[in-house]
Structures are given as structure tokens and as C-alpha cells.
């Protein structure tokens, strides 16, 4: 007997519109599920009263034929996305008591579509991490096997979806932070084209790299969510006006003639044999179903991680300068003068990974090193963009693993650099700005999900949905 919480977003939407169930029942089921699985620590806090009030309104709207796109459907939002009705802590002690005075644009859009935000998801502090181990409020457990990490930094956002605590979530992705945890948890995640979704109200990490994106149980659900949150926003000067057709219409019955690029340099990067075999099987599947597999070249791809860590750390160091103990909740109790207040508040408020990235960022931006690192990274970034542009003249999408290894256990990465190397396949996407999707394709010998990444050219999310959706429909995903 299927539980209400087992359904996908599309399925529960149909049941609500057919009045087989009410939003109140659905919200209660999700809140119960969150409570029953609270050891996962995926959700930091919930808004039970607010959610139930909104569910009643949703049921009225459905009754009166006024249902909006996500009417009455419980969703969760990552805790670096501003919400007025719930705190926004970024999983940091620094923002322990911070409640945003305004909703992020993506939150506003979810509300206008009738979605019910039932809670905020745990994450790596200030979105810095690839495992979910860097939260000031405790790590998130992988619902599939609690000994394994969820991946990060959208650790809670991925876990809450696979654990059926909600029907969809929003995460953010600066270097893979939606795609990698989605991959480790066996769900679908997309990083849209830079500029597709507004960043207004999203606590900034790397302003030229960050994007908000949905994490869902299915490709179809993902497309529906992206339709809701995307669009130009006058409050975000980097968001772009686009007239693309609804993503929900992008699923196809045939992929004949679609060109899938295999970059030899990408596959030369170190990866676990189970991961290699899984991706090879996906390539074979697409080929057997009429797609053309094309050999392409991305000569500078092995330099991307270095480019990413320089640019993202520099932007993070600048963005996190605003946390000074004056404006945002936490201030040190004991200090001697203003400057000491800054030192004490920041030293007490930030976790060790955040401090490491601030140090790295300010190092590469400091006068003696700016040209050697930051300026050089920007130049190599342009080179990478050109290489990707060239590749997309020949192919529709580029295929790769999401992670070089299957999900790892807590404490497995001994050094910061080892953890950073886990991002080699995801960071090029953010550096270049193009969209990419992560969807489950296999299980490791330990029973943990292995995911495939497809990368498309700017604004071509429809190709990602077409190919990922085709795989999911014909292979049943591999959950």
C-alpha cells in the first residue's frame, strides 16, 4: 500500500486536482514523515502551523477551480534562501537567529504558484562543502544508508526528497552543490544556465557561479519546478529575459539524431571503475536508441578545479565580509573596540571550512598574488568557455559522471584538497555558466546511487530534460 509521501510531485498534484485527497492530509503526512525520520537531520526546522493554514487555503482554491501550478504541494527550501516565515541560518552559528525581512524571489514564485514551504533544509555552512559534514547544526545522514554522506552542499535538500519528507526542494549550486547530493541520494537535480533563475534573496557565496535549482523525484517534476522558479527579475541584474517554451513540455518519445559528446579529457580524469561502467552503459543505451555519440575535445578541462577554487574563494571572501557582528544576529560577547569585535565575532561565528575558503580567497586577491592567481583564473575561464562553445557546435549535450566515486562514508576525505577533488566533474559547468542535470543510473556494489551528468549549451535545459527524461521513462531510473 503506497503511502501519500511515496508519490511524485506530478502524481500528488493529480490526486489533489481530482480531489482524491486534500492538501491538509498531504501536509500532515509530510510533517509526520519528517518527524518519523528526524534522525536524518535533513530539515532544520518546520513551519507546521503556517503550512496547515496554507493547506486549508489551497483546498479552498482547488475546490473553487482556482488551483495554481503547485497548489497545496509541500516543498522544502535550502536554508541559504531567504524566507520571512522561517529562519535563514545558512547552517551557520553566525545566523543562528536570523529571520530575513523579505522573501527571496524564488520563494515568492513558489508561494504565487500555491506551493507550501514546510521547512528549511540543512546544508554545508554557507554552501561550502561536498558532503553535508560542515553544518553547524549537525550532519545530514544519507537516507539510503545512514553510514554514508548525502553529498553537499544541498545535503538536506537532496535527503528530504529521497526520504519522502516532501515532493520537491530547492537547492543552490556553485560548484556542484545540487547535482552531487542529488546524485548521492538517487534523485534528480539541475543547475540551470547562469541567469535563468533569480539569485535575489539567496545568500551569496560565489556571485558569478551561484544558481538556484530544483531537486525532485523525477525528471518531469524537475521541469515543472524549474518552470515555476525561472524568469527575469528586476532585483537581480544577472537574470536574463528568456522566452523559452515550458520545460514541462520538453519530454520526448524519441531521441533519434540527438548528439551526445564524449570528451576524452573528461574521461581521462581519475574515476572509480564502477562509475566508469555505469556511464559507459548510459552511453550505450543512448546509442542503441538512436542518438549519435560524438568524440569531442575539452583540452583545458583538467584546469577547471583550480580555476573554480580561485574564483569561488575570492568571491566568497568578498561576499562574507558583510558578516561583521553588527547587522546579522551574532556578535561576540567580549571584545575590546570595534576592530576586535569584528575579529571575535567572525572567529566565533564561522566554521573551519568557511574560514579556510575566506583565507584562500583573500590570499588570491591580495596585492602580491592577484595577477598570478585571480587574473590568471579569469583568463583560463575564458579559454574554457571558448572550448565549451566549440564543443556545443558539434553536439547537443556532453555526458560525464557527476562524481568520480560512488557516495563515500562520513570522515572518508582526510584533507580539504581530497574533498575538493570530488567536484572535478561538476565545477566546469559553473565556471562556464551552462546548465547541467544529474539523474540516477546505477547502484554501486554497496547499494549506493551512481548518477550521470548531462551538460548542455546556454539556455538549452530542454535538451537535458529530453535526454534524462527519456532514460528515466525507458530504464525506470535506478533508485
Amino acid at each position, binding site marked *: 500500500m503506497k503511502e501519500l509521501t511515496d508519490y511524485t510531485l506530478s502524481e500528488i498534484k493529480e490526486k489533489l486536482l481530482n480531489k482524491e485527497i486534500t492538501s491538509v492530509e498531504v501536509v500532515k503526512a509530510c510533517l509526520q514523515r519528517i518527524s518519523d525520520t528526524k534522525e536524518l537531520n535533513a530539515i532544520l526546522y518546520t513551519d507546521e502551523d503556517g503550512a496547515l493554514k496554507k493547506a486549508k487555503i489551497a483546498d479552498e482554491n482547488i475546490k473553487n477551480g482556482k488551483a495554481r501550478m503547485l497548489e497545496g504541494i509541500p516543498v522544502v527550501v535550502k536554508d541559504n534562501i531567504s524566507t520571512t516565515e522561517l529562519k535563514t541560518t545558512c547552517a551557520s552559528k553566525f545566523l543562528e537567529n536570523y529571520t530575513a525581512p523579505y522573501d527571496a524571489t524564488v520563494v515568492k514564485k513558489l508561494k504565487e504558484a500555491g506551493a507550501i514551504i514546510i521547512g528549511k533544509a540543512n546544508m554545508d555552512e554557507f554552501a561550502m562543502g561536498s558532503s553535508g559534514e560542515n553544518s553547524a547544526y549537525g550532519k545530514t545522514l544519507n537516507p539510503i544508508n545512514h553510514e554514508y554522506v548525502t553529498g553537499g552542499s544541498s545535503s538536506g535538500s537532496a535527503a528530504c526528497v529521497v526520504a519522502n519528507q516532501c515532493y520537491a526542494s530547492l537547492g543552490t549550486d556553485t560548484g556542484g552543490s545540487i547535482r552531487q547530493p542529488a546524485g548521492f541520494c538517487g534523485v534528480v537535480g539541475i543547475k540551470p544556465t547562469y541567469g535563468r533563475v533569480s539569485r535575489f534573496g539567496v545568500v551569496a557565496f560565489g556571485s558569478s557561479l551561484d544558481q538556484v535549482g530544483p531537486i525532485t523525484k523525477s525528471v518531469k517534476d524537475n521541469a515543472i519546478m524549474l518552470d515555476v522558479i525561472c524568469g527575469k527579475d528586476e532585483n537581480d541584474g544577472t537574470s536574463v529575459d528568456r522566452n523559452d517554451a515550458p520545460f514541462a513540455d520538453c519530454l520526448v518519445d524519441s531521441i533519434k539524431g540527438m548528439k551526445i559528446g564524449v570528451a576524452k579529457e573528461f574521461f581521462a580524469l581519475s574515476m572509480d571503475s564502477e562509475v566508469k561502467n555505469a556511464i559507459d552503459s548510459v552511453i550505450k543505451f543512448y546509442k542503441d536508441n538512436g542518438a549519435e555519440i560524438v568524440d569531442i575535445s575539452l583540452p583545458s578541462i583538467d584546469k577547471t578545479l*583550480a580555476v573554480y577554487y*580561485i574564483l569561488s574563494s575570492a568571491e566568497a571572501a568578498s561576499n562574507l565580509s558583510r558578516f561583521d557582528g*553588527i547587522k546579522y544576529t551574532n556578535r561576540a560577547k567580549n571584545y575590546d573596540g*570595534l576592530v576586535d569585535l569584528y575579529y571575535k565575532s*567572525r572567529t566565533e561565528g564561522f566554521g573551519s571550512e568557511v574560514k579556510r575558503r*575566506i583565507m*584562500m580567497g583573500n*590570499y588570491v586577491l*591580495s596585492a602580491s598574488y592577484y595577477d598570478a592567481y585571480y587574473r590568471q583564473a579569469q583568463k583560463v575561464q575564458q579559454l574554457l568557455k571558448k572550448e565549451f562553445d566549440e564543443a556545443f557546435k558539434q553536439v547537443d549535450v556532453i555526458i560525464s559522471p557527476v562524481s568520480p566515486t560512488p557516495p563515500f562514508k562520513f570522515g572518508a576525505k582526510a584533507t*580539504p584538497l581530497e574533498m575538493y577533488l570530488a567536484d572535478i566533474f561538476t565545477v566546469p559547468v559553473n565556471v562556464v555558466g551552462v546548465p547541467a542535470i544529474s539523474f540516477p543510473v546505477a547502484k554501486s556494489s554497496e547499494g549506493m546511487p551512481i548518477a550521470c551528468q548531462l551538460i548542455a549549451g546556454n539556455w538549452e535545459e530542454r535538451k537535458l530534460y529530453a535526454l534524462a527524461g527519456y532514460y528515466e521513462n525507458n530504464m525506470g531510473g535506478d533508485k
Partner: protein
Amino acid sequence: MVDIKDVKHVADLSRLEFTDEELSKIQEDLSSIVNYCSQLSEVVATSAVSMSGETGTLRDDSVRESMDKADVVKNAPFHNDSAFIVPRVVE
């Protein structure tokens, strides 16, 4: 190995305090990451252009409602309803 003097200088720029032990660990971490990133110097690349190909647009320079002051300051640890309260700066 990144010079410990540079590490201390960057810590000051970052307004972060470290114990001697922490400073040593940060020096190690920073060195390994910086070392890894040094491979970029091998790349011959010429142009650097800003990330967003489409330049941001500006709105009209006109006065309009922003946000209630009380909402803006409410999260500060010390505030009156229209300003953040800070330690004395000017002697």
C-alpha cells in the same frame, strides 16, 4: 609552502584569529591548495572578460519605497528601531 607571514597577513585582512596550532594547519591547507592551483600558470591564456556576457541593466534613478527601517535592523544584536548600535568609534 606559503610563508607564515603571508598567512598572518591574510588572517588580518580576513579579520580572523587563529591559535598558533590553527595557523600552522591553515598554512598547510593553504599551501596544498595554492600549490594545486599553481598549475594554471602553465596555461597560455590571453583575454579576461567578465562572467555575465549580458551586462546587467540599471533601473531608473528615482526614489521609491525600499523597506521599513525597523525590519532592516531587527536582526542586529543591538539596535533601536531605526539604526544599528555599535561600539564607539570616534574618540
